């Protein structure tokens, strides 16, 4: 019997993993997000106050992007039998039209994340070409990277720690 290559005959569960989140705002000021097992509170989309401590939507978003990339590298290294001895990433994000967000009259352009640049520093026993091959192959396993790279300017650079 030949193996089917027809996507329509593949089980839905094999092609998609569905997740559901719930958000509520009892005080009509902050939002509580419920995952399947946990919940967390978000007070602001973004804060321009350097003293503001709670995590904002924008910070969760950036943290999600960076952590997905780093975790993908760690997971893929284990699967390929490589040992990453050190890893660290830096994410720079440019929010376009922030003044629309704070309601400055005269600014109407939609606020959006214009660009994300991620630099990952890795210590792993691989030579230059193998290092690049591993990093970029692993990166392709990050669902968040794959999603964002289709919709925005997302640059990821890898640097080898010596």
């Amino acid at each position, binding site marked *: 019997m030949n193996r089917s290559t027809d996507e329509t005959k593949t089980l839905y569960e094999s092609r998609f993993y569905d997740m559901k989140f719930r958000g509520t705002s009892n005080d009509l000021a902050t939002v509580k997000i419920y995952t399947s097992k946990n919940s967390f509170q978000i007070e602001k989309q973004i804060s*321009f*106050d*350097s003293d503001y401590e709670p995590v904002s939507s924008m910070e969760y978003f950036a943290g999600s992007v960076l952590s997905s990339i780093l975790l993908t590298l760690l997971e893929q290294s284990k699967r390929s039998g490589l040992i990453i001895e050190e890893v660290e990433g830096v994410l720079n994000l440019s929010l376009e039209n*922030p*003044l629309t*967000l*704070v*309601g*400055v*009259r*005269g*600014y109407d352009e939609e606020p959006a994340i214009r660009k994300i640049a991620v630099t990952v520093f890795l210590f792993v026993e691989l030579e230059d070409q193998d290092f690049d091959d591993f990093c970029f192959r692993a990166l392709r396993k990050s669902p968040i990277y794959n999603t964002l790279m289709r919709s925005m300017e997302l640059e990821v650079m890898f640097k080898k720690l010596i």
Partner: protein
Amino acid sequence: MSNDRIKVGAVIYDPRVTVIWGIIADFFKAEGLEIECVFYKDYEGQVDGLMNREIDIAWNSPLAWLDTYLRTDGKCQMGSMRDTDRDRKTCFIVRKDSGITSLDGLRGKTIGFGAVDSPQARLIPINHLHKNGLEFEADYTEQRFDIGVGLHGDHVGGELDAIRALMAGTVDASVALDLNWEAWKKDGTVDENQLACIDTTPLFDHCIFTAHPDFSTERFLQWQEVLHRMDYSNEAHKQMMDMEGLKEWVEGRITGFEQLREANDYLKFLNNV
């Protein structure tokens, strides 16, 4: 009721500045007088907003004050200013090795100015040159650094680019507000051994709160009374006052805008933009 709130306008070019106004609004609320902050992209929009009564009080640049003053036939109400807004002056800077030692030495030279609408880095110094016998568009070449047009020189970029051009040798002189010149010497932005201030304008004033002519004078005075309760010796107030760059709110005055009025007449600026 929100309708009772006094609406205060401010021009914002950096979202972080809204944090300062949030702290100021919280201070007023704690003092029992609620304000609503309304933010504008530029001073022209803010003066429009004041004239349309979108706001009751505007935190105005000197040029925005003049614009309001002219549009209301002098009937707008003048409010407080920061202690640091009083008695400012603009410095004329040259390279020490240029041999230029006085304003007359700038005849035929290229002078770097800030943004087109900057009182301190263009309008007032041009008027000062005029009063010292150097006519605009005749006796020297203007090299303008138009950073943040519409912000009336609030953004330091134009003045900074002008002095950088001076250091690079592409202009023969540049102008800068005294506070900026002193700060740049202190933080190493400029080399004091290479540059010299050859002249300064007479003293002038800077920003000022301005209320619409129809806004209740009693409420304006009440608002200012609360504003003046900010105390630099109070740690909570100090942080807010440091962010706004003052140690004390002082009585406003319009005598310090005389040079700007002369500059506007000389350049016919508000008639031309």
